[in-house]
């Protein structure tokens, strides 16, 4: 099966990789460039590279505050997702009155994209008094149906005899979930953590709607706000962009197997 030459495949894939990486390079180059960023022709290699723009970012905007807000909101969302989805996923492995109704409800909720609910979701959050708060930012994403089904599938693989044994040993339902099921469902937990983290960390539309004060803004909002205030006249915008992207890229490279598996299983099930 190895008769055809390999180099055309490598050539095509190198070209594709180049196309995927060049935009990052172009922004990175601009962010460390020492010359006027609008000088024509643009230099391909940064001239007199420096990190002044990265320092500028700290003066232009409260980067630490944005970062903290993003971390808090994501932490709430991730923690709530793991706990609530595990509970719901476990409940769905049991037989109980009304299970069919709950399944139907979940499946029909999956058909409702968040974007189709923004107007009433905003009004509801207002009635709850949660506008401009961490909880209000995180609440709509605190449980995800795809992730509930990821847990359900993983819990169903646990043999019934083990559960019965745990029951006889006097473990409560709560104990069964946390002491027995979760340790056996590490892959499902990883999928939950990664999906809920990506969704809340990258979310832009919802924070844009519910935050009012500058103090509650998350990183994506900060980026968009920076763009609307400074236009793209300063290299600091691109330094900011790199600072926002770097943690994401790092995290992806560290856990890429889990990322890819989590995102694809999320899509295939969704």
């Amino acid at each position: 099966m190895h008769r055809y030459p390999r180099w055309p495949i490598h050539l095509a894939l190198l070209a594709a990789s180049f196309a995927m990486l060049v935009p990052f390079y172009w922004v990175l180059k601009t962010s460390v460039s020492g010359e006027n960023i609008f000088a024509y022709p643009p230099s391909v290699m940064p001239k007199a590279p420096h990190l002044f723009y990265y320092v500028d970012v700290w003066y232009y905007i409260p980067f630490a505050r944005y970062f903290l807000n993003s971390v808090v909101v994501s932490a709430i969302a991730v923690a709530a997702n793991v706990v609530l989805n595990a509970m719901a996923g476990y409940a769905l492995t049991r037989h109980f009155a009304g299970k069919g109704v709950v399944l139907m409800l979940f499946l029909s909720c999956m058909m409702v994209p968040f974007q189709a609910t923004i107007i009433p979701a905003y009004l509801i959050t207002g009635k709850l008094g949660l506008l401009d708060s961490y909880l209000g930012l995180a609440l709509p994403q605190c449980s995800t149906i795809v992730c509930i089904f990821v847990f359900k599938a993983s819990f169903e693989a646990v043999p019934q005899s083990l559960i019965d044994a745990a029951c006889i040993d006097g473990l409560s339902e709560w104990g069964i979930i946390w002491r027995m099921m979760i340790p056996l469902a590490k892959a499902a937990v990883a999928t939950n953590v990664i999906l809920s983290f990506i969704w809340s960390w990258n979310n832009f539309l919802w924070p844009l709607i519910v935050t009012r004060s500058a103090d509650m803004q998350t990183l994506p909002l900060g980026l968009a706000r920076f763009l609307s205030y400074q236009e793209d006249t300063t290299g600091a915008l691109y330094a900011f962009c790199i600072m926002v992207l770097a943690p994401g890229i790092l995290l992806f490279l560290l856990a890429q197997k889990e990322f890819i598996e989590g995102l694809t299983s999320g899509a295939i099930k969704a």
Partner: protein
Amino acid sequence: MARRGRGGRWRRTAEVWCLLAPSLAIFLLYRILPLLWNGVLSFEDWSPLRPAHWIGLENYDEMLFDDGVFWQALWNTLIFMASAPIGIVIALALALLVNARIRGRDIYRTIIFLSYPLMTVAVAIIWRWMFDERVGLINYVARSLDLVDRPIQFLNSFNWALPSVIAANTWQMLGFYMIILLTGLQSIPGELHEAAAIDGATGSRRFWSITLPLLRPTLFLCFVIGMLNSFTSFDLVYVMTGGGPGRATELLITYIYKLGFSQTRFDYAAAVTVFFFVLLISVTWVANRLSGRDAGAMRLD
């Protein structure tokens, strides 16, 4: 568990409902209730400062017969949606290449996938810079190669703005399509290809008669994802062009946002949202029927 009597049974049912309660509450609050409220709101004349009163189909009437921007946004959304197959075809080619037994395939896969999980707002800023009129890489290359006389104002041009946004979107989605197609390719049994090869089928013949038909559900899944993406690409459009120039890149979702939160016309925005939702559901349904399998639907048990 049989030891417990009737009381135990009730207790267990109650326990199960308690476990479900928090998730159910969130979905009722942020999925079901908004959907109903949205429906009601679309038949009303209401704003936060005025009491609501029922006006029947007036909002829909305005939307369908008296609102050019709505039609423009709908048209743009459909063009955006129709562009999904371009990305899927490129991704299929990449998936076939990465699926070949070559060195470094994991590295290629990682690089191509990298852009997908990143923050879309940052991706939008990256592409604004790539498309920049003066020092964007694309104009720089085009001018250096004498392809254009004057730099193209990609994001400020009525002709170029929408294709530019679509290109950026395709760039971000490519890796995701590729990974999904790769999963599909790897689920095709190798024996099929070997048997066909022994029977003398050429590589391209095997692709058209084995790979492509077996990949059909996966391709439809990609299309459903691309279609959903075209309805929900708010971040990219909002940051890259803000819907402009004029309304050249206005999508339904950005229009809904502007109606609701810039013009405070919640009632009218709700009517557009109802249309948006019905369109989304019908396209998903058609795609599912065409795929011949329930791409996207869950197997219940």
